[in-house]
């Protein structure tokens, strides 16, 4: 098992490296010239050249990357073009709010999606199954910002169940979490349904019935553990998708997380903040995936050996 974890960790590190190369590449290729910004729009050519040298922009690309990497490893993600503050501090200050939202969204996904999927599979082709299938189709198809606005309109405005515009209380978390998680829940329901259906057809399920186990025992002891594998992997990948959805949902609900910050930075051409967000988010995704892989290996002992 340790060997498996070590292997996964190794890959995770490599992936983060690759991310830094990509972000560096984007920064390098961006049309915004930091030297020009640094020196000011009215700088003379000489001042511009000094700015270039100061920022290390006259080095060959590989050296620039190396310097960049060194800075990253020291926790220096650059400074915001707009506010001048260190990017790392900016991003980390907003991160907790996003994590809170993401966790809540994940909860929505799992708590709604998983049981519905299992139910649909067990009642295959029955009314419950059809409802879940149709409902999940809607969930997958409706764009997140539409969903967000609809939820706001219906449950915060029309029927004021939830606060409008608030971002600090638990009730305030509900609607954004739903907006974030419902599409995922729809995905999950379909996927878990499919996975459970597959497992239900397996020989060992038939064999456990042959032993005289009750249907409940068969499902809880044999079917569940064998079906959740794909769902666990999806949760890991999902985190990445979340961070994309977070951008939209945070805007709709005014949630003060890294998504909103990144959006503002994009419109303001504040590249360091954008790239800094990417690095932090990507690293978070990698870590999350690592955890998901380990959980999967714990659940299914065959994985360690492959």
């Amino acid at each position: 098992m340790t060997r498996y974890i070590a292997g996964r960790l190794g890959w995770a590190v490599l992936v983060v490296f690759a991310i830094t190369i990509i972000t560096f590449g984007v920064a390098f290729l961006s049309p915004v010239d930091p030297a020009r910004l640094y020196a000011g729009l009215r700088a003379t050519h000489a001042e511009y050249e000094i700015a270039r040298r100061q920022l290390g922009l006259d080095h060959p690309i590989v050296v620039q990357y190396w310097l960049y990497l060194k800075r990253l490893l020291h926790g220096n993600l650059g400074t915001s073009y707009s506010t001048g503050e260190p990017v790392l501090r900016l991003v980390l200050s907003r991160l907790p709010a996003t994590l809170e939202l993401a966790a809540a969204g994940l909860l929505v996904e799992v708590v709604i999606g998983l049981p519905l999927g299992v139910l649909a599979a067990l009642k295959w082709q029955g009314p419950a199954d059809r409802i879940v299938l149709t409902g999940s189709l809607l969930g997958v198809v409706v764009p997140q910002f539409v969903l967000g606005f609809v939820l706001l309109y219906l449950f915060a405005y029309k029927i004021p169940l939830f606060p409008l515009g608030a971002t600090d209380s638990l009730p305030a978390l509900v609607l954004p979490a739903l907006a974030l998680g419902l599409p995922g829940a729809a995905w999950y329901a379909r996927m878990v349904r499919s996975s459970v259906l597959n497992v239900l057809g397996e020989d060992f399920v038939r064999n456990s019935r042959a032993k005289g186990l009750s249907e409940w025992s068969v499902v809880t002891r044999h079917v569940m553990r064998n079906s959740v594998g794909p769902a666990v992997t999806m949760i890991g990948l999902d985190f990445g998708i979340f961070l994309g959805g977070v951008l939209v949902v945070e805007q709709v609900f005014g949630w003060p997380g890294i998504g909103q910050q990144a959006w503002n930075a994009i419109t303001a051409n504040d590249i360091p903040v954008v790239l800094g967000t990417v690095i932090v988010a990507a690293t978070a995704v990698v870590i999350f995936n690592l955890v998901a892989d380990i959980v999967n290996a714990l659940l299914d002992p065959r994985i360690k050996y492959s």
Partner: protein
Amino acid sequence: MMASAVEAPENALEVRGLSTVYGTARGQIVAVRDVSFRIEPGEAVGIVGESGCGKTAIALALLGLLPRNGRIASGQILLRGTELVGATSKVLRDLRGRRIAMVFQDSMTSLDPVMPIGRQIAEGIITHLGVSKDDARRRAIELLEEVGVPDPVKRLASYPHQLSGGLRQRVAIAVALAADPDVLVADEPTTALDVTIQAQILDLLERERRRRGMALILITHDLGVVASVTDRVLVMYAGRVVELGTTAEIFADPRHPYTLGLLNSMPRVESVLDRELPTIPGSPPSGYDERQGCPFIPRCSFAIDTCRRVDPPLEPAAGGGEAHQAACLVDTRTRRSAR
């Protein structure tokens, strides 16, 4: 039909007129057609046939485990007097594992891949015998020893994929025997195993049968296995029993053209035929064609006119032992009508 004057409760299993059907996209298949037989306690009965003959469908029907698209269309299954057809799920659950158990062909897929085998064995013990977990664990170790798994205490924690094919099948047998059933149905238990391992497993099944006085239904396509391990045989073709009798009789004096053809066409280890093997032309039926008359006609070299009109019933073979029955209108010894 095997008529019995007295409703002997001492039959471990009695099947009467069993028919099962499968619904598929292309239509309905009658997988098992009006099959009847009896098994006494401790007896070893072989059900032999090729693909599509219905032998696996019978096995699944006996345990009430037909897939979603299958059902028992008619007939009775009496397990020590208890009717299984139409029984409630509770009755079936109580009987499965405890009175009748099954071993499948592929031990890799018939065991839960993510559960240690010790627990899989203990499950049956706890469910049916209501013992404590510790007792169940001890019992599981005993069972593993009994079936010949070395180092049983360590093995309790193993997963199926960590075991070789032979060991896995032993474990599958231990799982089936956990609650001490009266009848064990083994569906091609050794087909996927190497021949030297097959011999070990057959020996194990035989020993367990004797030790427990358990009835064994051995389903296979291998005539050698049937000859060596069973007391009586049912030969199946196209969902029907085409010949039935003691193993000795059937091999010494086969009366159905199919049985005769199979025995003649088998290459043997003990002897050489330095010319062509006699063959049965054509292939086993797929189950969709519902023709009139005997299903074996397209491949039969004994067929006479009446065979095309009548589906021959299973009746005592002319001049054979009482219990030797064949579903054929022709006496294969003389090629003349037997009826």
